[in-house]
């Protein structure tokens, strides 16, 4: 049976406190964060946060992209129409 690491993977001088359920490494009390009852180390938690954040950003970005595409079409037509109208007036 392999020897179990008893020191923190990020701080070799500190005793191990918990096992990160993402990367399966031993981490100290400072590095471990209990999130929804499961221990994670700081880098793995940051990675999860980024993935979750990116997932949340996409619907807004798609909405912005669609709005931009619609505005490009409307703007082009409106510019031409207003231009012709103004040219006829002056």
């Amino acid at each position: 049976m392999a020897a179990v690491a008893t020191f923190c993977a990020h701080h070799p001088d500190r005793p191990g406190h918990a096992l990160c359920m993402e990367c399966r490494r031993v981490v100290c009390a400072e590095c471990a964060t209990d999130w929804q009852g499961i221990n994670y180390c700081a880098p793995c938690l940051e990675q999860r946060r980024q993935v979750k954040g990116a997932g949340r950003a996409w619907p807004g970005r798609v909405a912005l992209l669609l709005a931009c595409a619609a505005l490009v079409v409307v703007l082009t037509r409106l510019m031409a129409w207003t231009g012709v109208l103004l040219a006829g007036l002056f």
Partner: protein
Amino acid sequence: MRGGLSVADILDDAGDLSTLVAAPWIGVLWLTALPLRLAQAEFVSRLWALGGDASRHGDLILALATLSTGALVLATVGRAVFARACLLAIRTGAPPGRESLAVGLTPLLTHLFLALLAETLFCALCLTVVLVPLTITLAALAAAVAPLAERSGLLAPLKATAGAFARAGTLVGLQLVFAVAFVIAAANVAVAFYAGLWLAGAVPGIDLVAWAHRLSASSPRFLALVLAGACLVVEPFWLAAHVALVHRLRARETGEDLRAWFERLRAAEAA
């Protein structure tokens, strides 16, 4: 103690910012804005020349409008980079480096959305004349608000822009100052053209009479080019002023200005 929000304070900031970001970010801004200004100049001069017959040349007008809109998208990218450079210069107090190019996708899309909205409103409201400054202000605030965009969506940038409109007195003052600056810049651009024509007189083989006709006040294309040149000259200072204003407003909201003031006090005390 708190950073002032008067027109003079903002213009002071804009002057300092323009010096910090001058090389190379004003160049980037001009490079990306030049196609837009030339396309707009061509669009206006063609309409002017066609007059009442413009409706018979619908395809040409629509092609020029499409060209202008495409150039606006490119110009918006340049403005986003410039606004980010201004913001970095405000935060660090030093000339920004290549990190100015790292405009995030959310700020870029936010800026594009607001810029296209401002241009659409400009086209829709230009007949009213009085509402035109409002759309021009919106275009400037689009560049200033977008780098601070944290959440993507349609409502968040509109709310942020509306928040900047709360400081209406300063915004009106800024538009008046830049309107005067625009007229002065246009006069200078026109004089630069005439100076070029005068210097060209020393070069043999140039048809000065034809060029004098092209560069006369009766030529719609020349007038449109002068106005486009004035826009290019004023644009960096106009954008920098609005970025400075929005940054100061945000610093007041978050208390960042008080924190910076307190740090300055402590540093002075330690020294």
